[in-house]
């Protein structure tokens, strides 16, 4: 693949939803590129349309105008090259843990042993192979999210999408999961798009932060972070980026275009 062409490309993308004949604008004129193997955080306050960005990349939401491409081809529908991890886990309650993880493979092969073997491998990766035959309801929130991540990775996507994945977890679990996701990313070398509303979470994780804010959501800031991990949030460079982000969120209408 051409190293220089972006993995995911947004070009002047806008999105409106119809509510009883009123079109509500969610995103306005968003453009950015995401390159292979990047860890990108899409950061923004609640209601800024950042989850919509993820839905557009996944393919179950269609843009009202503009162009979205994946590997230089327009995105038409969801498929397993871009898997999504939800905040509410969205695990299948009627399947046990290993069958949840292997679900994506059932769309590709009927070979049960192969599916189980692969699923176990990924369950191992998130440290839950001992729980393979448990039911979903027996797991804690953090464990459920590990299963959901294993399920998303097991389908062997090129891009892993995460929609506020740790938003429902307590602080301690959240921090552990942040370390975990970096470890998994380092091991599997996938492109990761991680949506969050926590500035610190984005600063800790991202190679690049794409900031979306306002109503409708506009691109406020798009910056690289080239500090090695694990990162200290008191680092002076991170502090600089943080204050730039907070500045832009405070006055979105004045900062349009300045940092892009």
């Amino acid at each position, binding site marked *: 693949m051409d190293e220089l062409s972006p993995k995911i490309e947004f070009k002047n993308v806008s999105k409106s939803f119809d509510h009883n004949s009123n079109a509500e604008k969610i995103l306005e004129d968003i453009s950015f590129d995401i390159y292979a193997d990047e860890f990108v955080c899409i950061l923004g306050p609640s209601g800024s349309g950042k989850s919509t960005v993820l839905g557009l990349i*996944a393919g179950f939401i269609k843009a009202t105008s503009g162009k979205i491409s994946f590997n230089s081809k327009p995105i038409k529908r*969801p*498929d*397993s090259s871009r898997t999504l991890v939800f905040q509410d886990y969205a695990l299948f309650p009627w399947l046990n843990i290993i069958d949840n993880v292997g679900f994506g493979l059932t769309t590709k092969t009927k070979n049960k042993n192969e599916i189980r073997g692969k699923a176990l491998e990924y369950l191992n990766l998130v440290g839950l192979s001992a729980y393979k035959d448990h039911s979903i*309801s027996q797991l804690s929130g953090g464990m459920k999210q590990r299963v959901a991540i294993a399920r998303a990775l097991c389908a062997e996507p090129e891009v892993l999408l995460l929609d506020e994945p740790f938003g429902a977890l307590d602080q301690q679990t959240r921090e552990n999961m942040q370390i975990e996701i970096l470890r998994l990313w380092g091991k599997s070398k996938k492109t990761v798009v991680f949506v969050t509303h926590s500035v610190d979470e984005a600063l800790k994780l991202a190679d690049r932060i794409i900031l979306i804010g306002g109503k409708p959501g506009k691109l406020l800031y798009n910056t690289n972070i080239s500090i090695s991990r694990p990162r200290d949030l008191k680092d002076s460079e991170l502090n600089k980026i943080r204050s730039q982000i907070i500045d832009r969120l405070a006055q979105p209408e004045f900062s349009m275009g300045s940092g892009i």
Partner: protein
Amino acid sequence: MKLALIRIGFYAILFVVWYLIVKVGEIPNYILPAPIDVFESFYFGFLKGGYLIGIFSSLVRVLIGYFLALIIGVVTGILLARYYLLDITFGKSILALQSIPSVAWVPLALLWFGITDKAVIFIIILEAVLPVALSTKNAMKNIPLNLIRAAQTLGSKGLHLYQNVILKAMIPELVTGLRLSWAFAWRALIAGELFISGAGIGQTLELGRSLADMAQVISMITTIGVIGFLTENIFFGSIEKNVRLAWGLDAQK
């Protein structure tokens, strides 16, 4: 154990009081027979086969009606969930249909089908189809959107998506509908059978009335209650419980 003793005691007292009322009040047999007469009716009815044939024919009728209702109900439910126009027109009138008791359909069914099995099965279908249709519709509408989206991003679509996600996600609500529908079917069966000819629980009951054989009437009423209880609560109840457990809707103990 203690619970069992209390229950046995309760029934023993009930039968003694019943016996005393009949004996002391000198109540005629066709108004209220003594407990022993009812037991006798049960004993001979089952021994000579009359009751068994009746129960068997009734079960065949109700099962035919029920399964036809399931097929029609599931298809109707899916159509209602998928087509908005159908839902706001026909979907609304379903609720009105549901408030019509099954006996109200009897005259219509008799005129259309005569005093035959078909009339009873028709009434059963009319009664049993509605809960299935409604629960199918609701089950389909209540599938969490994220489950479908998760499946889609994992590569599931078309038939795979229907078989492995949509249908599976519907099952808990569907089972509740199936149970309710069975309860309706059972009531409709008895109502319909009172008016038709041929073997059946309803006819055995009606025969008891025309012969002024109150013991037979009471034993048939009891039979209806017992079969209804066993099927609705024990059979469907345990299916429902197991499904809810397997789907993680109730906590495991």
